[in-house]
């Protein structure tokens, strides 16, 4: 019976764990937080179908009810060492666990918006991130900096992605459609508000995304402006003034808004970065590098260590689950 260690109980880790367990493997699933699926339960509704994030979490968690899966919470893994035919999995307190094969599914963290100070996050109360917005939508409490219902909400795409200054040249892939999703949710809760989305270009790559974008404009009256916001500042009444340029008409533009929502990109999580470095399998931007661009996309340079999900690159939940399935099958070989 194979002994498998999976690091990170997000969608990828859970999906792979349940497949491997149903194929008679003994799985240890490590999670650094007190609970699984931290990057799912902080969302409200999910694109593309506005299904509830909590329901998905419940469903995924139910897959863990299997005696072959041992979920080890509050355990942050910091290193993996090859020890003859085995791997030694080492946690922050130096405790070690043994496995034949390892799957890394340590996922992502969102870009820390403080790093783009010009956008005023952490300085002006009216500036929030997409994660804050998820929470507001979940609690049905979309308010401006003084707790009132906002008249205007502005979303800004590509914060910390596609931005050479912050060192992330890549596209985070999910934020465009997340903005459309959130804008529609805001409209549902605030029928009278003006809603704007500032974008560089909109990447509606998935099934149903383009339709959603069209619906956002036609049915939900959400206005899309092509332009980056260069800076934000506070007005005397605690609103946020933004400076931008509408690059379609070539006009500089100033606008005052109650809420500025920064669509923060995805970066490798701290766990992903640490393991990528310590195991010598780091790729661009310290995501974990897989072996091949087409085949072997779940293998790493170290035989016996596999990778799945957003530890590898930004992806949606559906892609993450597919990828986790592929990884599980690869590990059974």
């Amino acid at each position, binding site marked *: 019976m194979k002994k498998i260690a999976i690091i990170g109980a997000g969608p990828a880790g859970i999906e792979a764990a349940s497949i491997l367990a149903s194929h008679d493997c003994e799985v240890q699933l490590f999670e650094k937080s007190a609970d699984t699926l931290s990057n799912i339960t902080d969302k409200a509704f999910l694109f593309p179908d506005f299904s509830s994030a909590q329901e998905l979490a419940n469903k995924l968690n139910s897959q863990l009810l299997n005696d072959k899966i041992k979920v080890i919470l509050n355990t942050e893994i910091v290193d993996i060492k090859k020890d003859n035919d085995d791997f030694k999995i080492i946690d922050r307190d130096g405790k070690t666990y043994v496995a034949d094969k390892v799957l890394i599914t340590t996922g992502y963290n969102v870009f*820390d918006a403080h790093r783009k100070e*010009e956008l005023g996050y952490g300085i002006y109360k009216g500036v929030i991130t997409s994660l804050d917005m998820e929470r507001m939508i979940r609690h049905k409490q979309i308010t401006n900096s003084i707790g009132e219902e906002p008249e205007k909400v502005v979303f800004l795409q590509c914060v910390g992605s596609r931005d050479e200054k912050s060192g992330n040249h890549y596209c985070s892939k999910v934020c465009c459609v997340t903005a459309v999703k959130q804008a529609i949710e805001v409209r549902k809760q605030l029928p009278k508000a003006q809603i704007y989305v500032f974008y560089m270009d909109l990447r509606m790559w998935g099934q149903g995304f383009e339709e959603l974008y069209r619906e956002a404009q036609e049915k939900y009256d959400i206005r899309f402006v092509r332009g980056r916001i260069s800076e934000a500042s506070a007005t005397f009444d605690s609103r946020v003034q933004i400076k931008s340029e509408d690059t379609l008409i070539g006009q500089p533009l100033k606008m005052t808004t109650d809420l500025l929502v920064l669509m923060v990109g995805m970066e490798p999580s701290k766990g992903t970065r640490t393991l990528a470095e310590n195991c010598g399998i780091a790729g661009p931007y310290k995501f974990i590098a897989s072996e091949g661009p087409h085949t072997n996309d779940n293998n790493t340079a170290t035989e016996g260590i596999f990778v799945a999900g957003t530890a590898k690159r930004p992806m949606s939940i559906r892609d993450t689950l597919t990828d986790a399935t592929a990884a599980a099958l690869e590990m059974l070989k």
Partner: protein
Amino acid sequence: METSNPYFSPFVLPFVLGAIFLLGICVWKFVRWFKHFDRLQRAIIRKNLLSWKIIPALWEMFREGILHVRIWRKNLMLGYMHSSIALGWFMLILVGFIESHMTPASSHPFWMAIFYRFFITTHQTFPGAQVLTFIMELMLIYVLSGILLAVVKKIYSRILGMKKTTKHILIDRFAKAFLWLIFPLRLLSEVLAASRFQNGGFFTGFLGDLIPPSNEYFLLLSWTLYSCALCGFFVTLPFSRYMHIFSELLLIYFRKMGVREKSERTGYTMYELNACSRCGMCIDNCPLNKELGHNDVQSVYFLRNLRQKKSPIRVADDCLMCQRCASDCPVNIDLMAIRQQERNKHEMDTADNYGYLDTVQPFNAIGRVGYFGGCMSHLTPGVPEAMKAIFEAAGQKYWYMDEDRTMCCGRPLLQQGFNRQAADLRRKLTEMINKSKITMLITSCPICYQSFKKEYKLRIPVIHHTEYIAMLLKTGRIKVRKDDVRTVYHDPCELGRGCGIYKEPREVLKATTHLVKAKQEKEDSLCCGINLGDTLLDIDQQTLIRNAAFQNLMYKHPDQIATACPMCKKAFAHASEFPVKDIAEIVRENLK
């Protein structure tokens, strides 16, 4: 001739002709450059020509032209090397001159001092003769030891603490070869003379006793070669780096009189260009050399290009204007001003339009201080927000000049050579400041600070916010707690090397947090790389420079970085998740 002058032999001719040539060329050059001084520069010289300023000028000429004190301070071995050759040779000429004139003789031609031991073959008995001989011997050893060090430096520069030395051009190599030959040949000649005439001092006499008395043929040959080496050096000198020997002396003099660089090249610039000894001390610490391997843009090469009348604009433009070389340069050449002259895009029309500034309403701010955040602070809103809170806590009424509209002080344009555009902006902002009647101008951005201080002619004091906060603390207008976060301070180039502000930021930090040291600090601090000086670098190259500066700050494992420049703040904030704060923000957090 021989009968009329016993102190002549044909071998002195190369020396004499060389010396006359050297004198002629130098005078010609110096006069020509002087003619190209601009009106103001000439007026300054006329006014101060014979004032008391001449005394410090002479002192500094001796200190830096002969003793090379600044090089000593930077690097002991290099100081020894440079000063041994300069001071040793100077003393050989001076003492030799005295010696030859004290010698009872029918005439004293000026070359007598140079070839003394050939012409004066007996031990002299005039008072002090032995002392002079002793000094001459000692100085010869001193110079030779310097030459030896120079040879070692050529082979293995690291022994003398230099990683990279200047890549010299042909004329410099010839001149150097002659220079290196002069003193060994002088030693040989004097030793041969000593072996034949027994007229040596403690050193040449000792060596002379070791060999059989030389014949006249060898003796003449050696003295001839010595004279030829001198001639070779003199003839190549005005076209080589050794022109610095005289140019530096005059440069020091003019500088002490109060002459400064202008926005265009003048005759004074020519003195500066020629005063560069190509010592190469500006190479090792240049971030472009250290981090990117750009090895033909450093000040030494930039100046040499200009002297050779070929100045690729790429070289002028590929410079961070971080001033590190300027602080390393022992000649104190105004390297940044010269760089800027070469960047001057003259009348290039950028079709920029600052008309929007005219629509800014004049603001009556009597009784308030002015606060200027600058374009960069608009990208770090935490800094002006902190300043607002500090003004409030101090009960200080203020006018935030550029709160709604970003206004550029003009310096970034100036640095890139858009002088006309920068002047436009300066005119507009000056007008606005004058009309507002503010009593003092406080800036957060060191670039604006340097600009308002040096490029504007404002009638009110201009201070940086770190100076302002230090003042508030001293006078007790604000009170702060001291936390124990280990904080390292990054000296911004424009504030530190640019304006000499090192003390106040540290005072403020010591009052508010636990200040720890960086590896290289103050004048030696490293540029953050993400600046506006060098527009040729791409972000990856800037990042390499930034990373080096970041490592420099991590020396004592601090918990946070403090800086006093919005641009440096952004540079380090992008480096990692490491906390980076402006001093104003730290003070705000600790306000009581």
